[in-house]
Every structure is written in structure tokens, then in C-alpha cells.
């Protein structure tokens, strides 16, 4: 895969995960990790999801939620896992990735909020990934 496309992915996925653009070193790390780990050619379905995600970064949350549940687009999920591993081992993002303590009410509120957001994204993501698949088929 060409490295410009991977750089675009790195930028989109990092912003999705931690709300911040990736530093150059992190982008290079993502490109290198893809070269080493994800050598298989993407399926047309996977490629369509990745292309759409990079063209419309706001859709990533929905596509991630939809494909997590449906199991479709496994390469897209692997790429997100690679980016999560990279941001998790970057000190600049430790505040967004390290385990956190929360009081019981705080924990319940945050979990509830995450679950609600997730439910919305799953519903939207399933519809969106179906639409992408239909568009790809013709």
C-alpha cells in the first residue's frame, strides 16, 4: 500500500482515537507497522470501508462500531488496533490511554455515556457499512 494513503489513515485514526493529530514520528511508526504486520492485500469490502473512513473521518466512529459487531472489514479493525497500540505507547497520549480511577457514581456515569454513544454508533455504523457494501457492488 502506498505510504501517502497510510499517512492519511494514520492521521484519521489517531484523531478518532485521541482527538489529536499524530506527531510525525507516530505517523512513520504506523506506516512501518503496516508494512511489517499487514502485508495481505485488502479485500474489496475492507478497502471500501478504509477508503470511506479516510475520506469521511467523522464516519470512523460509526464504521468502527458497526464492523466490531458485524465482523466485516477485519483489516480495518486490525489497522485501528495497530493505531491503538501506537498511541498507547506514546507518552503524549498517556492521559487518554492509561487506566483511570473513578468513584462509583463517576464510573457508572462514564460507562453509561460510553454505552449510549456506542449504541448510536452501532446502529448508524451497521447501516453505513451496508450502504458502502451496496455502493461497491454496484
Amino acid at each position, binding site marked *: 500500500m502506498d505510504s501517502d494513503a497510510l499517512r492519511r489513515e494514520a492521521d484519521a485514526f489517531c484523531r478518532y*482515537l485521541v482527538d489529536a493529530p499524530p506527531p510525525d514520528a507516530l505517523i512513520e511508526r504506523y506506516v512501518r507497522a503496516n508494512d511489517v504486520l499487514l502485508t495481505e492485500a485488502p479485500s474489496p469490502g475492507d478497502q471500501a470501508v478504509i477508503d470511506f473512513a479516510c475520506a469521511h473521518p467523522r464516519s470512523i466512529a460509526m464504521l468502527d462500531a458497526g464492523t466490531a459487531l458485524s465482523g466485516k472489514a477485519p483489516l480495518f479493525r486490525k489497522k485501528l488496533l495497530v493505531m491503538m497500540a501506537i498511541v498507547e505507547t506514546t507518552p503524549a497520549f498517556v492521559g487518554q490511554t492509561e487506566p483511570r*480511577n473513578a468513584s*462509583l457514581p463517576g464510573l457508572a456515569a462514564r460507562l453509561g455515556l460510553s454505552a449510549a454513544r456506542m449504541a448510536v454508533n452501532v446502529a448508524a455504523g451497521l447501516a453505513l457499512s451496508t450502504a458502502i457494501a451496496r455502493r461497491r457492488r454496484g
Partner: protein
Amino acid sequence: MAEVDVIVVGSGPSAVNAAYPLVEAGLRVTMLDVGNRDTTYEETIPEGPFSELRRTDEQQHRYLLGESFEGIAFGHAGAGAQLTPPRQYVARDAERLLPIVSGSFFPLQSLAEGGLGGGWGAGSPQFCEADLDGFPIRLTDLQPHYEAVAARIGISGAHDDLVPFLGDLQAMQPAVAIDSNGESILRRYQKRRAAANQAGLFLGHPRLAMLSQPLRGRSPTRYWDMDFWSDAGKSIYRPRWTVDELRGFPGFRFVGRRLVQSFTETADGGVIVAARDLDSGRIEELRARAVVLAAGTLGTARIVLRSFQLYGRRIPLVCNPHTYVAMLNANSLGKDARDARHSMAQLCVVHAPDGAQRRFTVGHVYSYRSLLLFRLMKYSPLPFREGMEMLRLLSPSFSVLILQHEDRPSPDKYCALARAGDGGEDRLEVEYALSPSDRAQHDAVETAVLRGLLRLRCVTLRRLHEGNAASTHFAGTFPMSEAPARDDDLTTDKHGRLRRARNVYIADGSVFPSLPSKGLTFTMMANADRIGCHLRTVLRPGSR
């Protein structure tokens, strides 16, 4: 050809503890092993607590993910999944030089200095009398050697409810501190002890080969939570610490880059060992009065079967079936977790509905802190962003129970050596299948344990069976027995001597006829020490 007293094959937990009493007695011992070491990461990992390195070390990705991103693994976990990039040297070259053919058994093997002990979780329960059922030795035969090994390597633990199940040691160091997650489960157990015990559930400190006090130049744990990544301070025992100690004795020689192929006995009672020099490719022959094979159960099987040209001969194999259970500890939800902790098992769980006199099941509870969240996400059906947020909140209360089941030989569990047809390495063919009744029994035990833990507010999230070889507890290929069953028996006597040979001893897991529901490493080391002590009386220095 110069002769030494003993050649020890391998450098893992059994090898070094068999060698120690021999070397200490003044015998000339040569240890042969490939002896791979970590040359990539050891120098790159700074000293400091995990939580601090996460915040400050810009180079952390080099060792947490690996120079070639080998720490990001996709697919099934399986054997060796616990090996972080700095530990992966343990398995280096093994797939190439020790090939296995199997559709059901995918073991981790090692050619490292210190063997599989380089990645050991340090769990060190002793066997009980009930565990030695079918062995030609009793607990009294092993106890002095448990003490000797404990004094040598350092075992910490507590005199708590688990003594009847895990044994007792005079040489035991005080227990290392449990982390806040484990503490909350233990407190709950202590409040409900009577009911839990009535249901057959017992909880306590694990026995760990981890120091709480200084020993032989090694430091007690500093609670830096770096134990999956680094051996700084040497608080966790690794067999290579003993190799280093042995190197200080004049009679000891370590010869690395040697892959032992076979042995032959000579008419005058000596043994010639053939080993391949991995650098030159040449076969070298070394001579000794006796040989101790401790190349790991599968490695030793190759050497013995090749030495007797028993290609195709099936020999038994046992391996503890392992189950991982992801749990949420509701006791610690909403409470602050301490960063200061060690990374190994925090608690030991015993399920013994019939008490300690009958067979029982042992598990260990780990907290999930220093292995990074992305590894958990791989198993999660959650989207990454929300999943990461949820795991951040829940991981301080997240626990992993590793439960192991006993294993006994059966016709469906065996290995055989197949000759290399293409000039490559001989292949070990392995078949391993659990019977439906085994599976049903494991399931019943797991259900009972998880029900008991639920009463302690540990909620099961998911059970994972990571394949037949995931425990890396391999044994049973040349079992110790009172008397040979047949003339061509491939068994060992109670001193570990291979019955088909006069001066070839086996000191690793191969000689265990069965495996109880416990880690075998500490017992393997004690048994190796026992065999070494026996051999030194046979080969008194200067007797030849």
C-alpha cells in the same frame, strides 16, 4: 577425547538444578545448550516503575511493541502469548530447529539460556502426597530438595489457608504484597471464609519464585510492575541466574551454540554425546561418565528417540489443559488502584470439595495492568474508542484467572519422532486429544470455581480455551516407575535413570507420569536436585 564427569543437556530450570549439587560436590560438569540470549531489548529498557515509564519514556514503543512490532499479534493467543517482545528470545529458533507436526498441539519450545524459565510466571506450588499418586517417590523424598531449591532460588509465600494444598517450606520468604485489586478479593474471602470453604473454595497468597528479601545478590521486588518486560533487580528467578552462579565454579563449563542430537554408551560405561555446533554445522562428540538430559520434555524426547533410532515409536505425553477466565472484580469498582505492584499472580485459588487428601484444582488470579489495553481490545467486540474508554475505567478491577486441570496419559495423547526426509531436522509428531469426559469434568470444575468466585463478587466476563499446549507444562514421555512394564519399556527408575541405558538420567518433566492441577516447575527443579544429589553419590569425585 577428554572426559568430564557429567554432561548436562539444557540450561533450563531442571538442568541448572540438577547440575548444582554435582558442581558443588566438585564434579566436572559440562552444560550443553544452544543458549540464546536477548541481545535486543535488555539494554533498552530503563529502570523505573511501569506507570512512570509510560508517562516519560519516548522510546517505550521499542520494547512494549517490539522493534519489528512483534508485540502486536493478531489471531489466536495460544502458547507463548504471554511472551512480550523482550521475552520472545525464549522461543527464538525453536520452530526451525525443533519442528513439530501436529494438528492439535502447538507448544512453545525454547533454545534460550535458561530455557522456558526465561518466560516463567514464577508460580511455585509444591506437590502434595495426592499429587504424587502413580509416582514411585513420596513427598518425603522430595521435601529436602524443595527446601534446597527454595534456598537457592528464593520462594515467597504465606502460611495461610493454602498450606494444605501448596505445601510448606522452612526456607520460604515472607509473601510479596498483593495489589489493591487482589487485596479486595482476599478481604471478601476472609469475611466469607466459612461459607467459601464449605463450598470447597480456598484463597490465599500464591507461592512465587519472587523475592521479598535479598538473596544471593538479587534484590527483592521493587513493585515496579515491570515483570513482564524486564528482569532488572533479578527479583524473579530465572535459571540463567543459576547458570551465572555455576560459571563461578572451576569444575563447570557452559558450552553454548550446541544442539544435542543423540548419545551412545560405550562398553566401559561412558557416554558419548553428539552435539551439532550451530555455527560451523559440525557434529562434535563429548564424553562423560554420565549424562543428565534436561532439554525440556519435547527436546529430551527427540534426543532419546533418536539415540535409540526409535523413529515412529509412540510415547505418551501429558500437558495441563489451561483455561483463562476474564473476570470483573466488583469489590474494587470505584476504588483507587495502587500503581505500586508486581505483575505476577496476586492470588491463588484452590477448589477442593473433598479436601487436600484428594485431587483438587488450582488457579491463579492476575490483575491486568502492565500488558497494555490494546491486547485486550483484540478480544473485545467493542469499537476502539468507547472500548478504550471502558477498559481504562474497568481495567483496575479486571482480573484474569488461569485455571489448570490435571492430566493423565491416554492413547489419544502421544508423540513420535519422524525422520527428516529432506536433510532438515527430525520432526516430532504430536497428537493430543482430550476425551469428552475430560472436557465435561473440566467444565464442571470451572463452573464450580466461577460460582464460588461470583460469591466473592468476581463476575465472569469470558472463558477462553487457548489450545492444548497453552500451559507449556509438558511431561510424561519417559515416566518414572517402580518397575518396567515391558522389556523395551521407555521408562525411568525412581532416580531418573533411563532404563534402556546405564548412565543416562532424565531430570526434566519427561519423568512425571502425570500432572496434577498445578504448575510443575518448582517440583521439576526439586526433582532435578534430587536426581543430581543421587548422581553425585554414584559418581563420587575421583572414584575413576
